[in-house]
C-alpha cells in the first residue's frame, strides 16, 4: 500500500520511507489506526472505532489515537501529512491519494527527465572523448617508424653485425637496399670490426644517405654518424673506394680517430 513516498506493509506492520530507506515498525496504536484508515480509505473513520482497539487488544484512549495520528503525519512528512485529514467532530479520513500520487510522479518525472538527459549527454561526451583519445593513440602508433629490415652480417671471424634499415614507406626503397648491400659487402671484407650495429636511412627526397655505426669498446659506447650527399646520377653514396677511406674494419676507437685525422690531413 503506497502512502505518498511511503509504503505501508500491513503484514509486517512496517511503514517504509522509500526515499531514505528508513523503516518504521509501527507501535500498536499507530498500526491499529493506520490499518483502519487504510481499510476505510476515502471514508471517515469514527473516533470510537479508532479507540475500539483491535480484537484482543485493549481499547485506546482518545489521546493515544491523537498521538498516533500525529506521529503518522510526522513520518509522512510535510509533503504528505495532509493525506490523513481531520474531520471535525467525526473522526479521521485517509484521503484517496492516487490522483495526487500520479501528479507527484509527473512532478518527479519532470524533474528527473532533464537530469537523465544531462547524465546521458555527459556519458556520451565521455565516450566521445575516450574514442578521440584512442584514435589519437592509434595515430601516434602510425607515426612510429619500424625498421624496414634487419639483416645480420657474419664476418670472416664469425663476428656478427646487424644492419638495420629505416624507411617511412615500404615501397620505392630500391636505392636504400642497394646502398645497404654495398655497405654489407664492404663489411664482409673485414675479418673483425668494432661496430656491432649499423643503421641506415635515406632522406625522404633521396638526397642524403645517413649511416650510424654503433659499437662498444671496453664498456664505452662508440657512435659514428656519416651523412652522404650525392649530386651525381645515378647516385652512388657508398662505394668500395670510399668505404676503404672510412676504415670501417677498425677494431679500436684510436684507429677511428686516426682515420678521421688522416682524412683531415688530406
Amino acid at each position, binding site marked *: 500500500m503506497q502512502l505518498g513516498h511511503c509504503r505501508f506493509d500491513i503484514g509486517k506492520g512496517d511503514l517504509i520511507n522509500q526515499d531514505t530507506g528508513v523503516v518504521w515498525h509501527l507501535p500498536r496504536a499507530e498500526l491499529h489506526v493506520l490499518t483502519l484508515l487504510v481499510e476505510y480509505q476515502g471514508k471517515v473513520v469514527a473516533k470510537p472505532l479508532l479507540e475500539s482497539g483491535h480484537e484482543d487488544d485493549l481499547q485506546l484512549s482518545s489521546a493515544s489515537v491523537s498521538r498516533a495520528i500525529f506521529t503518522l503525519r510526522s513520518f509522512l512528512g510535510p509533503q504528505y501529512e495532509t493525506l490523513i485529514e481531520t474531520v471535525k467532530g467525526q473522526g479521521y479520513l485517509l484521503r484517496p491519494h492516487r490522483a495526487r500520487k500520479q501528479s507527484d510522479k509527473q512532478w518527479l518525472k519532470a524533474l528527473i527527465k532533464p537530469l537523465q538527459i544531462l547524465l546521458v549527454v555527459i556519458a556520451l561526451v565521455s565516450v566521445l572523448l575516450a574514442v578521440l583519445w584512442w584514435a589519437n593513440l592509434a595515430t601516434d602508433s602510425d607515426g*612510429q617508424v619500424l625498421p624496414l629490415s634487419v639483416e645480420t652480417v657474419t664476418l670472416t671471424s664469425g663476428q656478427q653485425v646487424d644492419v638495420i634499415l*629505416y624507411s*617511412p614507406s615500404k615501397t620505392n626503397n630500391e636505392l636504400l637496399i642497394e646502398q645497404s648491400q654495398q655497405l654489407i659487402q664492404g663489411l664482409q671484407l673485414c675479418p673483425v670490426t668494432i661496430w656491432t650495429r649499423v*643503421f*641506415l636511412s*635515406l632522406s625522404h627526397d633521396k638526397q642524403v644517405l*645517413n649511416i650510424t655505426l*654503433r659499437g662498444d669498446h671496453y664498456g664505452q659506447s662508440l657512435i659514428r654518424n656519416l651523412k652522404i*650527399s650525392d649530386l651525381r646520377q645515378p647516385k652512388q653514396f657508398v662505394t668500395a673506394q670510399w668505404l676503404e677511406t672510412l676504415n670501417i674494419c677498425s677494431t679500436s676507437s684510436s684507429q677511428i680517430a686516426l682515420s678521421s685525422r688522416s682524412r683531415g690531413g688530406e
Partner: protein
Amino acid sequence: MTRKGLWAINIVVLVCLLGCVGAIYSLTTKPANFMLSCSSELFNHQAGKADSDHYLLVDLVSKDGLAQINYRYYDLEGNSAGTLSMTGKVNKVDTERQMFDISVTTKQEYVGAKGQATPEHYEYLSYISGIHLNKNGMHSLSVQVLERDETKDYAIVLFQPSNTVCGCRLVH
C-alpha cells in the same frame, strides 16, 4: 534524502571524475626536458670534383616545452662553415613510444667566413626548412628514439619527416 538530491550528488561525482581525468591527462603529458648532442661526418660526392667533407654538430634542447635545435657546420680544420639555429616548441611527448613532436617556428642562418665553401647539407637543410616555414609558418618534425642507453649516455634517434637516423650523446 530526496531523489533530486541523489541526482545532484551523482552529477557532482561525475563532474569531479571527469575533472580528475583531465587533470591526470594534462599532468602526464607535461613536456620532458632533454638534450641531445649529435656529431656527424658529412660527405658530398660530386661529379668530376673531389669530395668536400665537413663536420656537423647538432644540439637538440627541450626545456619546459620549448625546443632549440642548432646545426653547426665545420670544415676539417675546425673553422665554422655555417650555423642554422632553429627555435620552436615541443608539441607532444610520447614517453611510451619515445617520440617527441616539435614545431620549429623561427630559423636563423649564419654562413661561414668569406670564401668558405658552404656544405651541401647546410644548403639542403636550409632549403627544406625554408619551404615549410614560408608555407605554413612552421616546420614540424618528430624525433623517435630507436635505441637508448642511459648508463652509456647515448641514443640512436630518427628524425622525421627527413627520415634521418643519427646517433647522439645524451647530455644531462
